[in-house]
């Protein structure tokens, strides 16, 4: 029974740790996506360069959330395209057939903030006087990507929290029953303690300590498993999320993991024990 109690505490503790780890990776992922995603405003082919640069200055002045704005002329866009696809004869031939430079001048705008801030800038571009210069604003697809990441993160967080709560309840019940069984097995011993005048807490104490020991044991197993897990998945996660090292993250935040797992284990273990002794150990 004791092993079962520690086992469910470890499972619940690992789930709590998993949610914690997931928060870190999701946060990192979102920040990476934010850095990579920008708004591209394509200007009409007829728009003069000084007008476009005036738009750039205006946006820099009016929008404090703008991190950077890069002007890409028609020529730069063509050169960039040709450079990337220099080894693709089909595309090169297609460009030659078009004859004229088909690319539009553009402004690549990057902000520091939330998806809502992208929308705010897109609105500035479309509704002000700049609208007549602008062919289109490439924003919608990027907005979807960010919102999708947010939505997935939120869903996984909600799932983690619900599963965590269920597992916490299950582990509390298992600890509860383990200690209750211990009390029932020690009925005679407890009655002897009573008749020699042991106080309530003198009798209850060992059972609460038992709950605390379960919590501490579960913490030790959880902490060890988290370390091993971080080490094992580190290289695989770096391949998916370049720049994110699970092992380094664990080493940098080990005390937060330790406090969370210890706090969780002891709170559930001692809390369940406290409820049992209050309910079943009336002295």
């Amino acid at each position, binding site marked *: 029974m004791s092993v079962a109690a520690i086992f469910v505490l470890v499972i619940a503790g690992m789930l709590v740790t998993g949610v914690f780890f997931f928060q870190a990776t999701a946060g990192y992922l979102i920040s990476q996506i934010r850095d990579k995603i920008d708004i591209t405003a394509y200007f009409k082919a007829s728009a003069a360069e000084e007008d476009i640069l005036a738009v750039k200055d205006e946006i820099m002045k009016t929008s404090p959330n703008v991190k950077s704005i890069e002007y890409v002329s028609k020529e730069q866009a063509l050169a960039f395209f040709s450079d990337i696809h220099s080894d693709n004869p089909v595309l090169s031939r297609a460009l030659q057939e078009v004859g004229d430079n088909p690319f539009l001048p553009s402004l690549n705008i990057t902000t520091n903030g939330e998806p809502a801030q992208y929308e705010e800038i897109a609105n500035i571009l479309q509704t002000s006087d700049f609208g007549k210069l602008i062919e289109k604003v490439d924003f919608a697809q990027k907005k979807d990507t960010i919102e999708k990441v947010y939505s997935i993160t939120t869903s996984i967080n909600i799932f983690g929290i619900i599963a965590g709560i269920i597992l916490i309840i299950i582990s509390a019940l298992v600890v509860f029953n383990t200690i209750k069984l211990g009390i029932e097995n020690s009925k005679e*011993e407890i009655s002897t303690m*009573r*008749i*020699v*005048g042991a*106080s309530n807490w003198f009798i209850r104490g060992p059972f609460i300590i038992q709950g605390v020991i379960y919590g501490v044991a579960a913490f030790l197993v959880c902490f060890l498993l988290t370390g091993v897990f971080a080490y094992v998945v580190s290289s695989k996660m770096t391949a998916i999320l370049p720049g994110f090292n699970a092992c380094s993250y664990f080493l940098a935040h080990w005390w937060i993991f330790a406090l969370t797992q210890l706090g969780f284990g002891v709170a559930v273990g001692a809390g369940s024990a406290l409820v049992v002794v209050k309910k079943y150990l009336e002295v």
Partner: protein
Amino acid sequence: MIRFEKVTKIYPGNSADASPAAVLQDVSFEIKEGEFVSIVGKSGAGKTTITRLILGLEEPTYGDVYFKGKNLRSADSSEIQDVRRSISGIYQDYKLLPAKTVYENVAYVLEVEGKSYHEIKEEVPKVLDLIGLKEKSENFPKELSGGEQQRLAIARALVSHPKIIIADEPTGNLDPYNTYEVVYLLEKINKAGATVILLTHDREIVNKLGKRVITLVNGRIIRDEAEGRFII
């Protein structure tokens, strides 16, 4: 010191069709400090219920039990624990702590009283030596004979230098030699000033003692004599 005033104890029947059982009926007596009192009666006469009422493990259905002038009915749990700490019990089934060694069983009572580690280390070996169990201090109760277990129970009762000892059928599981030894020890404790309440159905012991005898029949006191004999 201990006073029963018109005490009646009725246990409800265990099953729906079982009628309530009156184990004690209108029982009144007083035990003074330093007395040696034998409460005698056949099995089921209500002797153990008297022990449980004195220790506050039960409440009387009617009447009141007083300990040093305090009505136990109105005592809170810490006062009840104080009562239990000031009374040492010796029981037929020994009531030892099976998971603790001989030493730990005796030490437990002192721990409950809040004695320091040094006091415990000093007191426990003395009592074990007196009772002849010093060599077995690391043994567990199940490794002892019946007589040794009862001696351990007595050691536990003595270690806190109690003012009152309740011995509830202390010789029930013992052979004549060990019975004599236990009774001799109780007399010695009484001579040293402790109040001893002996609950027994052993005619021979009671008649040999020649002390106060309260006789219970079917939950009622039928006799209370200063130098009584076992007559039922």
